[in-house]
């Protein structure tokens, strides 16, 4: 880019790991903790968030020359709220059980900081193509983060993967034997905090180990630079 901002490819890959919204930027914690007790719920939530993220980023990018600085947050929020309404009504029509289970967390996408952050950082400054790939990469990174947290919680807490995908008893896959003592605590609210804390510690530990090999300096930026160079090579 002429103005020194990253191009679409960099934006896309940045969203997945180097600037992962959950593990690196610690944004949008509310759905991350609340809906990850089942993989099915987590993936539905990530899908809805990615849909809203992509649509809102594209619209914001198209509007970027007409935005007034003092009104821009309001415009972002109203754009997001409109797409969240579409996502919410669509889920209620086609996946009523999932919609009832996620309840108020679907409308809470409106105040998910990830979407406002992407609109502010990327879409209000760059073209439609870049904004689209930025949103797609961030959405994918969010999906991977939610899937990893819910995988740990559901496998250890219930012994299954993807159970309840199509209603109770549908499509679930039992990965641990029935005799395995399940950790019910992981399905309860404290389990969400523990799982995310430990996983975040593991990601940091990986970054630190990498940092020692690469160079001295700030933990997050050095890790990001190294991963970025590796991805682009």
């Amino acid at each position, binding site marked *: 880019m002429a103005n020194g901002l990253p191009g679409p490819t960099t934006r896309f890959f940045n969203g997945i790991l180097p600037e992962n919204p959950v593990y690196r930027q610690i944004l949008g914690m509310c759905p991350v*903790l609340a809906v990850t*007790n089942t993989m099915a719920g987590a993936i539905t939530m990530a899908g809805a968030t990615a849909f809203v993220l992509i649509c809102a980023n594209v619209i914001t990018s198209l509007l970027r020359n007409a935005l007034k600085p003092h009104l821009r947050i309001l415009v972002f929020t109203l754009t997001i709220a409109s797409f969240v309404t579409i996502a919410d009504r669509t889920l209620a029509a086609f996946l009523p059980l999932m919609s009832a289970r996620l309840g108020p*967390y679907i409308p809470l996408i409106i105040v998910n900081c990830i979407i*406002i952050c992407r609109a502010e950082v990327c879409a209000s400054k760059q073209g439609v193509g870049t904004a689209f790939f930025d949103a797609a990469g961030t959405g994918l990174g969010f999906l991977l983060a939610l899937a990893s947290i819910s995988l740990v919680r559901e496998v250890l807490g219930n012994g299954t993967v993807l159970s309840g995908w199509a209603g109770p*008893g549908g499509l679930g896959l039992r990965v641990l034997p029935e005799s395995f003592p399940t950790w019910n*605590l992981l399905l309860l609210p404290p389990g969400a905090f523990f799982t995310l804390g430990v996983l975040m510690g593991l990601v*940091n*530990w990986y970054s630190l180990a990498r940092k020692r090999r690469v160079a001295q300096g700030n933990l997050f930026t050095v890790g990001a630079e190294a991963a970025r160079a590796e991805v682009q090579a």
Partner: protein
Amino acid sequence: MSTLLPLAAIELSITNVMLLIVSTALINNFVLHYFVGICPFIGVSKRLDTAAGMGAAVTFVMTVAAILTKTVTYFVTGNMNVTGGQPGVLTTMIAGRALDLSFLNYVVYILVIAGAVQFVEMYVRKFFPPLYKAFGVFLPLITTNCAILFATLMIMMQNMGFAETVIYSIAAGIGFTIAIAIMAGLREELDFADVPEPLRGPAITLIVAGILALAFLGFAGVQGPSQAEPADANAPAPAHVETPEADAAA
């Protein structure tokens, strides 16, 4: 509804009100049970006085926003998209039939909350300068605080009455303040602890919050064994475990 303004879906006896307050502030604590308002919980909870200021500001804005959105829902948009919902009273009167405007709710709510925060900020700055100094930087941040929107959504989805709305939002704000103040106290001590390097920062905060949530899980016993959460992955998520109506019936 026979009366013009429905006060509450439950009978407003002392027992029910106390149950509603305990259930909202402690058992279903916004931060530790519903996970809303995590951003200020992790970001602002470094010192006890800022945490208390944030808690007070959230309680204040939450109550104002809850009353405003309840009024808009009741008179204009209605909440026909939830079970037992009803159309807006004024729109029904004007149109002569039940209009389902509930799809507008999310857009209207976020607009009302953003507007309410602006007005509260201007009003407090003009008439209560000491209070403005205390709330200060937190007021604008609150627009995007998910706890406010979550409270208005719960009130809409559970068909609460006006008195119930006020009690619920104040109790929710108190619960948020309790959680964020305890966390601030813990983190002031945590500064002196020797934490392994990868866990420093948000990771150890989350683990400490998990232990705190574990302690708050004990409050579920206050309401008796029927309130224990289902540990089954197929069961509804925490958001739908209990409603105040069910609490009252229990």
